[in-house]
């Protein structure tokens, strides 16, 4: 926190359409980690910590053996959830290094959904042989409410109703991702920009979400290396300090069946408060941000809850082009994000936030001194991390 630790390296595997990877998920994970360590100018033997989120498959035992990590001192993950843990994983590394439990931690996420099945499908084996669903999901799944798209659609409809947000704002979030992807050679959607017409004509998934409101599912891996600021300064690419990170969970936040109060929320109300207070800056100081897009609607909720725009003003602010690169007030998802670059459970957005500080983005915001990454909205606890120039 407060510039004690920094990102020294970023790396990723190649990205593939879902099921298109020629390597296994574990091979992809190892490749991204190797590349992040090489980018930093470090050796794998320098790594003494491993952090991820929602990843039991590519565990430290396998990684240590495969990568020759000779002395792991620290491992960690956040609880369950999903992409909401993308920034809190960075926060764990920051906390561990600040506390002196490790010096050089790899934070990563790998996905090969061809190999391991999809998030977005109802292929669950809830109850072997029986057509029943237990627990809190018994109150939702029997009504055909199953996938994240459908659940987030219910949240988004209420949000749109309360704050007079229309499909025009949802389109902007989709548009900027596809537009920024056109400049990014890593982006899977490069060569496939979308127009408003394409968006309107794309099929409905769960209203108000068209196909282009929903993130694809992809295969690939992304990783960063976090170390002390002092050490990072002496390495190949210099330091991208972590200025602040935050997680947030309100009382009964995320309770099943939409029974949290207040509803709807993206779970960023006090993530924002804590983050700005720890960093000593405010949203208006931030020139560029990466917002995890699971679906366009929750991104708008997160933008508002993080303090960038009151919810009742969102429609006007967003449709004025505020999220567009290069001239908008807050260009977002400059790599193309989950929608346009690749969906690696949101970790690609962390790499992109670091690249904005380095000046390496393909949609660079000139002279960015601060760069924000906001993790998956609509799932609790929310998390965010703010990088700064050294």
């Amino acid at each position, binding site marked *: 926190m407060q510039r004690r630790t920094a990102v020294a390296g970023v790396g990723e595997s190649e990205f593939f359409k879902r099921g298109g990877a020629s390597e296994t998920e574990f091979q992809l994970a190892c490749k991204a980690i190797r590349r992040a360590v090489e980018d930093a100018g470090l050796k794998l033997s320098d790594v003494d910590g491993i952090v991820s989120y929602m990843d039991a498959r590519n565990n430290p035992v396998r990684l240590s053996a495969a990568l020759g990590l000779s002395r792991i001192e620290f491992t960690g993950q956040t609880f369950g959830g999903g992409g909401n843990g993308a920034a809190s994983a960075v926060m764990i590394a920051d906390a561990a290094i600040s506390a002196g439990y490790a010096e050089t931690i790899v934070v990563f996420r790998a996905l090969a959904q061809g190999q391991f099945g999809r998030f977005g499908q109802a292929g669950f084996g809830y109850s072997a042989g029986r057509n029943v*669903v237990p627990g809190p999901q018994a109150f939702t799944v029997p*009504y*055909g*409410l199953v996938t994240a798209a459908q659940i987030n659609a219910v949240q988004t409809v*209420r949000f749109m109703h309360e704050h007079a947000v229309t499909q025009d704002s949802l389109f902007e979030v989709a548009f900027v991702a596809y537009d920024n992807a056109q400049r990014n050679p890593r982006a899977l959607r490069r060569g496939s920009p979308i127009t408003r017409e394409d968006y309107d004509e794309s099929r*409905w*998934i769960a209203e108000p979400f068209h196909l282009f409101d929903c993130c694809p599912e992809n295969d690939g891996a992304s990783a960063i290396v976090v170390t002390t600021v002092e050490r990072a300064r002496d390495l190949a690419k210099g330091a991208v300090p972590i200025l602040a990170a935050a997680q947030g969970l309100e009382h009964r936040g995320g309770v099943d069946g939409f029974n949290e109060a207040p509803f709807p929320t993206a779970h960023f109300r006090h993530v924002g408060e804590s983050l700005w207070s720890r960093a000593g800056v405010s949203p208006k100081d931030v020139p560029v941000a990466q917002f995890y897009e699971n679906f366009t609607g929750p991104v708008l909720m997160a933008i508002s809850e993080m303090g960038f725009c009151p919810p009742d003003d969102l429609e006007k602010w967003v449709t004025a082009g505020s999220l567009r690169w290069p001239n908008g007030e807050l260009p977002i998802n400059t790599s193309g994000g989950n929608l346009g670059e690749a969906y690696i459970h949101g970790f690609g957005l962390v790499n992109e936030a670091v690249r904005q500080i380095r000046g390496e983005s393909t949609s660079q915001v000139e002279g960015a001194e601060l760069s924000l990454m906001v993790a998956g909205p609509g799932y609790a606890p929310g998390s965010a991390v703010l990088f700064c120039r050294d």
Partner: protein
Amino acid sequence: MTRYLDGWMLPALDEANREFFTSGKIVVRECRGCQTIQHPPEDLCYRCGGYEFGGREVAGTGTIYSHTVIRHPVHPKLSERLPYTVVLVSLDELPDVRITGNLLEAAPEDVRVGLAVRAVWEEIPDPETGDVLRLPQWVPA
């Protein structure tokens, strides 16, 4: 009546949800210690920490708090039911309690926030356990 999502998954009954899914009434869990309504059920009361719950019956009327019309199949058993409408109903007697269901007897275009609805029940016998499920559903009031 034929089930709206005929052939799709059913709730697995347990002590905490049996009354909700079999009584043919809207019955939610209420803490015996402090009368806090707890929906969906949890192992202990979120206000007083109590372990004991009873059922509180309320009128099966409410308004649509939010909704979605699902048009993309996520499971073969749901494909032939498309499009189907999922609603979140705020109960008239307990506005902070929201019940998920489907909107029957209405076109997808007719669903909107604020629409007054009333509960109806889909009766589904389970030959394996002998239970008769009564799944709450919603129609325009």
